[in-house]
């Protein structure tokens, strides 16, 4: 009995060992199931919807057309697309400008400090994202912390326009995605062989040139990864512009939300979602290509 079981067990392992394809299937099955049911299939629905039409009561009318994609050319939407791009780009740039020096500093501390510093970076992000974004309202609004302090010390008479505009959105997004820039940069710099920096200095490069010619190019993969991790969610952001942006600072994410939940125009919402995804893909590919060439 027992020996039979052992034999059967062994033969199953044998089978898996001999057939790598079957082995891969067994290993991938859970995640494949998940991705197909909850990602690929819904995505297909969105793709199909984007070519259909909204009925008078918000229902889906099965009438294949390209009109939804044509509506992007409406200057209203075009402007929002452009603004979203601008905000996402500025967010990425500021995340890099603040994040890279910090990542550099952290990665060059003694080894025993580094994990503690990483922890310190992460701790604020254990708080709920919504709560943290609300906190920015209290800081930035006309009667918020900054304006109150500046007015009470008499530096300004009128509150600064810190809230309800693109500035507020960028502040919120930079804050929100900051670790996503720092961590890949940190990983890239920490991996760096600093004897290369010594070699550069030995070959007459001062600190600045050693940085520009050695450290930065070699940490570029981290910068690219970080930029994509920041740019993509920033482009599709909707909570942050919703809470900090006010009525005039709408981003793509807000329109999508609006189309699905308020206007109930599922086909147009789907079309925007798909267009956004395509744009992100193109942006990522261009970025990788450019980054790959400099490396």
């Amino acid at each position: 009995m027992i020996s039979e079981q052992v034999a059967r067990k062994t033969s199953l392992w044998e089978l898996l060992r001999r057939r790598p394809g079957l082995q891969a299937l067994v290993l991938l099955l859970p995640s494949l199931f998940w991705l197909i049911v909850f990602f690929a299939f819904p995505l297909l629905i969105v793709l199909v919807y984007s070519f259909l039409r909204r009925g008078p009561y918000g229902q889906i009318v099965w009438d294949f057309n390209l009109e939804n994609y044509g509506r992007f050319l409406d200057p209203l939407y075009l402007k929002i697309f452009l603004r979203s791009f601008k905000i996402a780009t500025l967010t990425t740039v500021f995340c890099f400008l603040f994040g890279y020096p910090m990542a550099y500093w952290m990665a060059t501390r003694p080894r025993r400090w580094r994990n503690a510093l990483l922890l310190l970076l992460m701790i604020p992000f254990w708080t709920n994202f919504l709560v943290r974004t609300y906190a920015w309202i209290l800081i930035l609004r006309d009667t918020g912390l900054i304006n109150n302090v500046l007015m009470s010390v008499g530096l300004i008479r009128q509150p600064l326009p810190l809230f309800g505009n693109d500035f507020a959105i960028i502040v919120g997004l930079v804050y929100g995605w900051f670790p996503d820039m720092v961590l890949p940069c940190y990983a890239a710099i920490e991996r760096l062989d600093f004897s290369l920096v010594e070699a550069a200095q030995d070959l007459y490069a001062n600190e600045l040139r050693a940085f520009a010619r050695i450290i930065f190019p070699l940490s570029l993969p981290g910068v690219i990864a970080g930029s994509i991790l920041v740019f993509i969610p920033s482009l599709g952001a909707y909570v942050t512009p919703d809470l900090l942006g006010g009525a005039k600072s709408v981003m793509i994410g807000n329109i999508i939300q609006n189309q699905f939940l308020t206007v109930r125009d599922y086909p147009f919402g789907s079309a925007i979602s798909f267009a956004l995804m395509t744009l992100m893909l193109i942006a990522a590919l261009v970025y990788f290509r450019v980054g790959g060439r400099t490396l």
Partner: protein
Amino acid sequence: MGESIAVEVRSVTKRFPGPGSRPGSEVVAVDNVTLQILDGEFFSLLGPSGCGKTTTLRMIAGFEHPTSGEIYIHGKPMGLTPPYQRNTNMVFQNYALFPHMTVARNVAFGLEMRKVPKEEIERRVQEALAMVRLDGFGSRRPNQLSGGQQQRIALARALVNRPEVLLLDEPLGALDLKLRKEMQLELKTLQREVGITFIYVTHDQEEALTMSDRIAVMHQGRILQVGTPTEIYERPSCRFVADFIGETNFLEGTVQEQEESRVTVLVDGLLPVIAETDHRLPRGARVSVAVRPEKIRLVPEPVPGEHNTFEGRVEQVVYVGTATLFRVRLSPNVSLAIREQNIISTPDSRAYSWGVGGQVHVAWLYDAGRVLTD
């Protein structure tokens, strides 16, 4: 070899904060070292790991600064001058080639930083690659090259700048034995050709002996002896040097009498051994006599004149290809390692009679032994 001094290290001490980084827990890496390295010389810093040789080299390069003392390059005190303002170049142990640049860009780096005109850079890079016999490799990436090729690129990248002094930090350490031996001779030839002062750090005594004009043996941050390979090997100044360079028999004993440089040492209370010294030694002083295994001969009968000669019993015979290693016991407390070249290719009666357990005589010249006082 020129007469002028290329690098002078004057009373240099380097302390590092200790592992606990508590005040007072300092590590003395280099302890009051003084060296004079001549123009065009191939000079080696030799010692076990942690002896301070690399720290000394890094101070000459400018990566570390002396805690006290001063380093002069062609008479100019270096002080806190950073590496990029020193006319020295370094070949790193791991080569430290820039992985994101082609071989040609690597070699051109130093010239570019010095804003040498483009055409001249191109010409000199080609020359440097030709010098290390890697012309045509310019467009490759370092990771497409073998270890030996990377090593030569690192050398070209340094030499293309025509430095006053080339610093080499165990540059052959990562290569396998055969390639290392080839590169040793190649480096030595190259150094003669370019005539640049080489300061070479190594823990490999054979490498140092093969390549150097002069060697400084370091131990625990101090210089124990500076001299030519022959001086270091034949006339070691202390027990550490005799032990570290090659193999040595140490015979412990007391001084019986001295006549000029020749001393009679009574070893183990019964063997009178005659050896050389540079010092005046008092009668009864505890000393050791160092004798190299290859200086001792196995003979059937005592050898007369100028020889120490004793009777002993063969304890061990090990055939190692080029030579045979014997261990011969002279007294209950004294045995000798002896190395005999395998001149005869087949085992004959002579070898047979010197098998384990055989009674033999050993003999070595008086000058072959050195009296060491530590």
